[in-house]
């Protein structure tokens, strides 16, 4: 019997898991997918917003500004990538210039500490590749970017070190309420008993909510598509570039990633299905046109990958984070869309506070609050490289040419704290296959490495989820 069962391994579930792991009690985190962070966390802009956008007084505003302040310390403690880029909201018309005043006031009211106006010349001297017809900008120096799935993974690994149990391939199908606990049922897995439930199910949190509550907050998925421009373009744009929001939406952003890539997107399109994460010709064209207004020479020819992610929109445009009114020890987090990544560390603390209002949480002795990640081998010092290779010779074998990832780094992740046993999971952990050739060279090599390390046949290694083997069967005739 667990004290708390957290549903969902996205950035929100991971942040809550980490905070909760500092207290006594048995916690389990279940994830429906074959790997952590395969939902909203894998496909978003990766921005730690300053907080100029959410409505004043909203939970989004409060948790966004607080979350932003927590990230720097968190990235140091948990050793995940964080790039303090700052951001510019760029105006091109007098009307947009006027709107910058509205945004300035909103930022101030929301508690954003640093915010200021820049003239045309100041803006262009900072970002010479912006469209020079701009009139001015609003500067937000506290904006940062991170690798969302790396941040979530760091939080989860920290929680695991403090005793959290992580269960992958656990899709909740039904929840039965008992006198003083819940029976949670899963697709193709035995049930789990727990006293409390924290529903951080992301896009599916409304469906989990419906298993327990009469009144459900419904999610209306909204798709956003992106371009990823190769790190060949590093330095072309150095800050997060926002357009001035319009009636049509927040608009397309240009976002420098910690790894040097430039993300361009998202558009915003309401979709019916929560798995409608395809890119479209129309969507990609729209993004291109909108982004070229910000920067006319944006090098789209360096595009190495398009992707789309869904956001868990709800009516009312604020987060819904509440205790259940009829089920003890049950907390729901629904509609955690943007700025959910930014807010996540604050959401973690907010949920703990909610629980503390209801029950006593006993701090754990000897709790670990830090986590270390090994430096990518080829970025390490010559001396360290030598030492690491002497201990593990497979560091010497380069597997991913584009991103410079060695065989040993892949092996380390196959047997890591959160084992990565699919091509996609290895990509998330190591960046292998994420470069310009998109795995053209190394994917088959990684497949062989995973199979050998897990003692499986090559045809048992999945691309992504369960039942997505890359190879279907051995050829009948010997090659």
């Amino acid at each position: 019997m667990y004290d708390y069962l957290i549903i969902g391994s996205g950035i929100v579930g991971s942040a809550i898991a980490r905070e909760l792991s500092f207290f006594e009690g048995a916690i389990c985190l279940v994830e429906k997918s074959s790997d952590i962070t395969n939902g909203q966390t894998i496909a978003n802009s990766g921005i730690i917003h300053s907080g100029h956008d959410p409505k004043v007084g909203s939970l989004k505003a409060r948790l966004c500004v607080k979350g932003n302040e927590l990230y720097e310390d968190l990235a140091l403690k948990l050793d995940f990538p964080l790039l303090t880029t700052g951001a510019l909201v760029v105006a091109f018309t007098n009307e947009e210039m006027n709107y910058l005043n509205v945004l300035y006031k909103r930022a101030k009211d929301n508690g954003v500490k640093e915010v200021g106006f820049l003239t045309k010349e100041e803006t262009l001297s900072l970002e010479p590749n912006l469209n020079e017809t701009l009139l001015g900008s609003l500067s937000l120096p506290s904006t940062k970017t991170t690798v969302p799935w790396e941040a979530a993974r760091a939080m989860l690994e920290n929680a695991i070190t403090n005793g959290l149990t992580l269960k992958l391939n656990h899709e909740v199908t039904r929840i039965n309420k008992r006198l003083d606990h819940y029976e949670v049922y899963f697709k193709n897995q035995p049930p789990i008993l727990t006293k409390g439930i924290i529903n951080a199910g992301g896009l599916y949190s409304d469906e989990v909510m419906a298993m327990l509550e009469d009144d459900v907050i419904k999610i209306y998925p909204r798709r956003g598509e992106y371009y990823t421009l190769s790190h060949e373009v590093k330095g072309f744009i150095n800050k997060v570039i926002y357009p001035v929001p319009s009636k049509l939406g927040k608009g397309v952003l240009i976002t420098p990633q910690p790894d040097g890539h430039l993300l361009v997107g998202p558009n915003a399109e309401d979709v019916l299905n929560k798995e409608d994460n395809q890119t479209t010709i129309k969507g990609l064209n729209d993004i291109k046109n909108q982004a070229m207004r910000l920067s006319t020479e944006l090098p789209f020819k360096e595009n190495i990958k398009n992707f789309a992610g869904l956001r868990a929109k709800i009516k009312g445009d604020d987060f819904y984070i509440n205790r259940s009114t009829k089920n003890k020890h049950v907390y729901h987090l629904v509609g955690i869309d943007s700025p959910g990544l930014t807010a996540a560390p604050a959401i973690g603390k907010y949920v703990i506070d909610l629980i503390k209002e209801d029950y006593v949480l006993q701090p754990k002795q000897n709790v670990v609050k830090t986590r270390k990640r090994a430096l990518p081998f080829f970025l390490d010092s010559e001396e360290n490289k030598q030492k690491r290779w002497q201990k593990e010779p497979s560091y010497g074998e380069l597997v991913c040419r584009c991103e410079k990832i060695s065989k040993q780094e892949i092996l380390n992740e196959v047997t890591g704290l959160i084992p990565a046993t699919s091509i996609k999971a290895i990509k998330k952990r190591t960046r292998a296959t994420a470069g310009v050739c998109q795995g053209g060279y190394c994917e088959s090599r990684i497949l062989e490495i995973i199979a050998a390390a897990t003692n499986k046949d090559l045809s048992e290694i999945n691309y992504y989820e369960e039942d997505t083997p890359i190879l279907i069967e051995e050829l009948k005739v010997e090659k």
Partner: protein
Amino acid sequence: MIYDVCVIGGGAAGIASAKNSYEEGLKIRLIERNNELGGILNQCIHSGFGIHHYKEELTGPEYAERIQNELTIDIEVSLNTSVVRLIKDNNLFHLTLSSEQEGIQMIKSRSVIISTGSYERTRSQIYLPGKRLKGIFSAGSAQRYMNQLGYMVGKKVVILGSGDIGLIMARRMTLEGAKVEAVVELMAHSNGLTRNLVSCLEDFDIPLYLSHTISDIYGDKSLKAVEVSKVDEHLRPIEADRFLIECDTLLLSVGLIPEISLLDEIKPKKDTKTRSVIVNQTYQTSIDGLFVCGNSLQIHDLVDFVSKEAEIAGRSARNYVLNKKNNSREEQDVLFDEHLSYVVPQQIDFSILKDDFEVSFRVKEKYEEINVFVYQDDKQIKNKRIKFALPSEMEKITIAKDSLSSKASIKIMVEVIK
């Protein structure tokens, strides 16, 4: 110790250039990341290699074996070794090697030949929309999975792009029991060699849809179907003219791109048309002592021509090392008109012009017959009639050294006859 020539990449180009750079007394090292030489030839188990070079038809592995046997033992070959960094300092190249056996090593060399091949254009580079699903492969990856790992990748196949690897894979998968439903080509002409169109598609009744593309991709976790659309004259899908093909596998055979990421730090002058570097007739780049050949210089249709190009690059590197003193270059561009998509070499260095040389090029469109003229100082110095000039087939024209009467640039002009 300082090497005279380091050749990076041990495929067809690397082997030929290493062999031809050798001369008694010179220290040559050939560096290959795989556990065998031969590069991509090893996964090309079909025949058709060597028709020009050896006057017989060999399979890829046979061709690889043949050229390896010609390598002399005086060339140091390092297998399972990657070059992770290349810089030039004080007139010497510094290579950082990485391998399981020896860890990280630094070596120096007077000259370097890049023969690192190419990579396949990816899904995102052609803006193919739809979901990220299992079952979508580049044709070369599928070829490696089948021919080197010995596994099938799917049963019902659609191929986007009519490049040669895609055509070869259409035949290969059919012979292994898969059903190849269609080959879909955006352009109005095929991108493969005519002989492959016949022997890989026509002989197996595999339909080729020219002026079509894949406009959407369907499936849940794995590929279930693709939507094929006819395209208009701007190559945009026509909404009213589309159909679905059920399939579990989509192979992309949409072109190769020279792999020259190792040159990111040295930064030789680049050619946006070939997506590689600018070279002169000796295949030397704008950096003294740095040579590039094979698919890392320009995408070839036939390995025979790779070998030929690499032989010259190898001899050039040898001459460069033996010459010792850096002569000042006298370089002029090879100009060309709008009928061609590129030329290689892009420059002629008159200061070291000792032999006749070849210029490779491709036409932008398909022509039944063209007349290619080469001019220098408004004087015609060569002409060549070409029947059935196709963008998919590299053409060559030989320029005789003696036909050049000055050190002015030459220009290649095309007259379209039909």
